[in-house]
């Protein structure tokens, strides 16, 4: 058994320590003898690719999973965490990516959900006390908002604040955050970082899961790297470089610069958007995309990027303006756009891109049915052959084309979504956050694929919140702000700084 402690032995007693934690699921060892310690008032970064065991470890921490083996120590005393109630008693709270707030209730009701202070008459709730208590908690984390605002009126960042307030109101001493900045704008991220600093000063420990290198070095006091369910190393940010961390996560060398063979001169005009407006909040959008180009579409979350993508694809009705594709105007439902050669790879793969319960093959041919079977008669063997070819071409890791697509990893699922448009023979690929929730190895594969597509005469319009990806990959980019195109950046102007400058409103 491993009694080995994480790196430091000279520091004070950890607030919480896990020793030799293992957790097995049928066929997968999710956690294998993992030890992990959190000290008071530190930000402990948890790093690893998807499937490395971060989520499992988090769920063991908060009592959602019961560890098969291993021990827990709280301030040096042995404790048991076998239920979420146990974890709550120890002051462990988790801020998941998907929030657990009730949208129709207000902030105060959400913070005290299930623990409402009783009123004078039994069975009633003391509304005034809830509001004042909520205000106090919100003040404590520096969130200035009326606690009687209903949660469905709040943005993602504000909802996150409410989640944190809820945790703090439950006397959380250890806050576990799962990629908290994934859906935040830069400004919101800054506010979150300020809050984290404040919580640290109050002695709250934070376990922070992230895929973003910059955050790891900006915030972390200590870094634990997981790979394939095992703890690879525990280090301090000062002692490592980003490249070293990536190597630890991946277990091999990964080229962090994305492959891109820029064309000498762009091809013919493929997509021309003129003065496009839609009820979803975008107005007067003008965009051009040529064959052989990857054009970025950046801006803050909520600036209208996805809405532009959906309007071009016909998924949302257009109120005015014109979309000219391949020389002809286009307007109508997505089936028309798809038939003409436009592909949308939507942001939420699972809910909008795939039929999770259906097979890899079913998902791969769904957009190409009419192209593959012009007679209208479906032949499953022919569909299977097409799928097998795509699986080989895209190197989709699946035991067979019949595997249920929901069982694949994020990276492979994304390849299936792209694959269905390859089968359909699309000419313009609109990617909405193509690398979200995908590990580094799969990311560079996806970019290599996009590069190959445009080299063969297709074109891509790529939305990404990862500005570094836009800068590395795109020929040029449009930056959006509040539903409009705020500016255009040519290849030589394409820097993170310029994107941010254009994307932020200067009052």
């Amino acid at each position, binding site marked *: 058994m491993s009694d080995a402690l994480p790196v430091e032995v000279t520091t004070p007693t950890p607030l919480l320590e896990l020793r030799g934690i293992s957790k097995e699921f049928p*066929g*997968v060892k999710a956690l294998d003898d993992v030890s992990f310690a959190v000290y008071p008032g530190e930000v402990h970064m948890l790093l690893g*690719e*998807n*499937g*490395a065991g971060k989520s499992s470890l988090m769920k063991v921490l908060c009592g959602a999973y019961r560890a098969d083996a291993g021990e827990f120590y709280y301030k040096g005393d042995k404790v048991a965490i076998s239920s979420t109630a146990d974890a709550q008693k120890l002051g462990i709270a988790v801020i998941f990516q998907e929030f657990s707030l009730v949208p129709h209730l207000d902030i105060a009701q959400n913070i005290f959900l299930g623990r409402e202070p009783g009123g004078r008459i039994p069975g009633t709730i003391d509304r005034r006390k809830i509001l004042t208590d909520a205000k106090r908690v919100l003040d404590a984390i520096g969130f200035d908002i009326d606690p009687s605002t209903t949660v469905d009126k709040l943005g993602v960042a504000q909802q996150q604040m409410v989640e944190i307030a809820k945790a703090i109101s439950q006397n959380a001493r250890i806050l576990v955050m799962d990629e908290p900045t994934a859906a935040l704008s830069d400004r919101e991220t800054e506010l979150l970082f300020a809050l984290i600093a404040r919580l640290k000063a109050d002695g709250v420990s934070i376990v922070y899961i992230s895929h973003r290198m910059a955050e790891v070095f900006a915030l972390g006091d200590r870094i634990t790297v997981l790979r*394939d369910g095992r703890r690879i190393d525990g280090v301090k940010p000062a002692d490592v470089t980003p490249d070293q961390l990536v190597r630890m996560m*991946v*277990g091999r060398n990964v080229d962090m610069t994305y492959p891109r063979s820029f064309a000498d001169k762009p091809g013919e005009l493929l997509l021309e958007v003129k003065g496009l407006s839609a009820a979803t909040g975008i107005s007067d959008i003008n965009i051009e995309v040529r064959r052989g180009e990857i054009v970025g579409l950046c801006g803050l979350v909520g600036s209208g990027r996805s809405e532009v993508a959906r309007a071009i*694809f016909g*998924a949302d009705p257009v109120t005015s303006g014109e979309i000219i594709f391949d020389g002809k105007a286009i307007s109508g*439902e*997505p*089936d028309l*756009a*798809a*038939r003409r050669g436009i592909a*949308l790879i*939507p942001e939420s793969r699972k*809910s*909008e*891109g*795939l*039929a*999770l*319960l*259906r*097979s890899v093959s*079913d998902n791969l*041919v*769904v*957009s190409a*049915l*009419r192209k593959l*079977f012009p007679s*209208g*008669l*479906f*032949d*499953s063997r022919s569909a299977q052959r097409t799928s097998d070819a795509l699986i080989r071409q895209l190197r989709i*890791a699946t*035991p*067979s084309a*019949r*595997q*249920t*697509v*929901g*069982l*694949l*990893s*994020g*990276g*492979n699922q994304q390849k299936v979504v792209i694959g*269905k448009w390859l089968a*359909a023979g699309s000419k313009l690929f609109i990617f909405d956050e193509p690398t979200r929730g995908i*590990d580094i*190895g*799969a990311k560079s*594969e996806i970019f290599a694929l996009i590069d190959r597509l445009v080299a063969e005469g297709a074109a891509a319009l790529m939305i990404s919140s990862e500005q570094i990806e836009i800068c590395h990959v795109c020929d040029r980019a449009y930056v959006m702000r509040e539903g409009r195109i705020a500016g255009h950046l040519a290849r030589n102007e394409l820097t993170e700084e310029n994107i941010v400058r254009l994307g932020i409103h200067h009052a």
Partner: protein
Amino acid sequence: MTDITKDAMMPPRSFLSQDAIQVFYRLLAALLICAVLAVLSDSFLSLGNILNVLRQASLTFFIASGLTLVVLTAGLDLSVGANVALSACIAGTVIHKTGSPALGILTGLACGGLVGLLNGIMVTALRIPSFIATYGMLWVLNGLTYWYMAGETLHGFPAGFRQIGSGYLFGLPIPVYLLLVFLGIGTFFAQRTVWGQEIYAIGANPIAARLSGIPVARRLLLVYAVSGTMAGLASIIFLSRLNSAEADIGESLTLPAIAAVLIGGTSLFGGVGTVFGTFIGALILTLVLNGMNLLSVSANWQPLVTGIIVILAVWLDMKTRRRAQ
């Protein structure tokens, strides 16, 4: 090892398609019921009884087969029974007035199909949930039929027309031939046509289906129209078999049809199920009721037994069917 390679090492989980496995279980269940009934009752295995079971199952199947397509898209058509009643009464009137069974049959099918199309328009253009749209349609159709019939009964149709429901060909009831034909057509449509594949895709995830370029609204229109047309077909068989039509003949048809679909393994959540499964579902339902008759169990128990079978079948489905997250 990255998670990409890990996926490739997972055992393949579906050498046989899940649908095939579910149908296989159901065939076993039907055979088991047959075996039990053969032991318990001497008359069960008689040719006359078996043909009777098939004929009864065929009526349920006609309605349930169209309904299966609707349920595959995660919808529901509660108006099928009321549609059968209205179509039967209108078709019956046309036969009486014109003396032409062919014209009557066409009118019945057209009436059923038109009702289905209206359901489809409510679901697609007006975006009313199918459960509510077809529930409202049920009342509207009932109202129309009662008003139209005004308590009258249509009775007595030409002998040739009555052959459809009660005639025999080479020793088999004609509805059984129709059953086989529509079982074949339904299975072919669902499994072997592009439209069928698109219907499965819509049921599995309507948003993803739309964003994959499937014309979702047009396919839904088709599916509801087919369901209505099959109700129209059932109305003809009914009319011809009973040799009469009244306003209330549809009231006992909808729930058994839904039961056959569910027992047959089609998920109310859409995307999963087969027309063949629905056939076996109709068969199991009929077998059980037939067995209870043969064993002289009071007919009062039949709804209770049907309910238990539906719950059991769906529960077993959920247990055996793995759920991908």
